[in-house]
């Protein structure tokens, strides 16, 4: 176990339940590196739903809320409302965050509530055996689309931008150092931050969609297909080539929801006191 693991992992829960070569372990490590650099492990509160990626926070020595399938974001909003000083992080997968919990993502982004959502996208429903997911590409053969998928995939980053998130990034598990940097930015950002991580799943995506279950092959596929782009306006060109653009998309400042609520409470209280204390 490396020093980071010795410091922050729950030893009785080990080894990770992830398959050999899974990207989720890399995300655990990048996130712990960011937390270690900032020294905020005691301020963290995490929420997760159901899925492989929802197991990521369970291994860390921090407060974790494990909730119903797809309902991690509402639980996190409740957590933030009751403990505004905590840094709330949601770990969710493409099935949890885009399919069953898709609307929660939209409304959390619309309110600009100060939570960080990490969406781990492995392009398939991996834990249940490789069924087609909303993020599966056109033409992919899975257990439930044996002749190729006809549906166009959802783009989580574009949805988050359109819904009003104030920080949006996408990286893959190949870019672990950039991922650590982005986690640090997101933990310090005031507002809704959305980070999509394209991850490899050798056992389901690799075997059924890409053609090989070797972890090396899957990592090479990510390396070849995830193109870092600095300027977000050039993302369309990369997408036209059939590749996945990665990078930071936007970071802006907007009024945060919980602060606005507290401001309104103060205003109402002051007005009532000015009228003579009859509330």
């Amino acid at each position, binding site marked *: 176990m490396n*020093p980071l693991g010795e410091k922050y992992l729950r030893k009785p829960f080990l080894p990770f339940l992830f398959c050999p070569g899974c*990207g989720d372990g890399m995300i655990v490590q990048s996130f712990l590196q960011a937390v270690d650099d900032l020294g905020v492990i005691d301020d963290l509160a995490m929420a997760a739903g159901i899925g492989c990626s929802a197991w990521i926070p369970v291994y860390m020595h921090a407060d974790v809320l494990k909730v119903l399938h797809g309902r991690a974001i509402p639980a996190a909003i409740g957590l933030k409302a009751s403990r505004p000083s905590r840094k709330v992080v949601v770990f969710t997968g493409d099935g949890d965050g885009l399919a069953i919990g898709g609307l929660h993502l939209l409304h959390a982004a619309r309110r600009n509530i100060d939570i960080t959502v990490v969406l781990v996208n492995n392009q398939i429903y991996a834990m249940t055996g490789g069924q087609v997911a909303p993020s599966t590409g056109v033409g992919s053969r899975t257990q439930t689309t044996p002749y190729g998928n006809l549906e166009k995939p959802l783009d989580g980053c574009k949805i988050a931008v359109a819904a009003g998130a104030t920080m949006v990034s996408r990286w893959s598990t190949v870019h672990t*150092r950039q991922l650590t940097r982005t986690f640090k930015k997101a933990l310090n950002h005031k507002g809704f931050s959305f980070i999509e991580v394209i991850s490899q799943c050798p056992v389901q995506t690799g075997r059924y969609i890409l053609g090989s279950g070797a972890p090396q092959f899957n990592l090479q596929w990510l390396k070849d297909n995830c193109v870092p782009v600095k300027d977000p306006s050039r993302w369309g060109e990369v997408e036209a080539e059939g590749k996945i653009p990665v990078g930071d998309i936007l970071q802006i400042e907007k009024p945060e929801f919980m602060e606005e609520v507290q401001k309104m409470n103060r205003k109402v209280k002051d007005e009532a006191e000015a009228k003579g204390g009859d509330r």
Partner: protein
Amino acid sequence: MKSAERIEIDRRYCKGCLLCQYVCKFEVFEPGQERSALDYRMPRVAKIENCRVCGLCETQCPDMVLTVVAKEKGKENP
């Protein structure tokens, strides 16, 4: 140039995915025959002298089992 004193592989948790061998540009690792506690074939540190302590194998290890221990500055080879 930095060099490594040793590379530790935790045999309790290694799952033998060999991503360390794949990401290493200096061919430090090779597939080994020894089995870990989870009954996977572990990688073997073959050429420790090639290691430049870039830390890529550490950050890309999905089970967080690798630790690269760098040589202290005074002890480096001339």
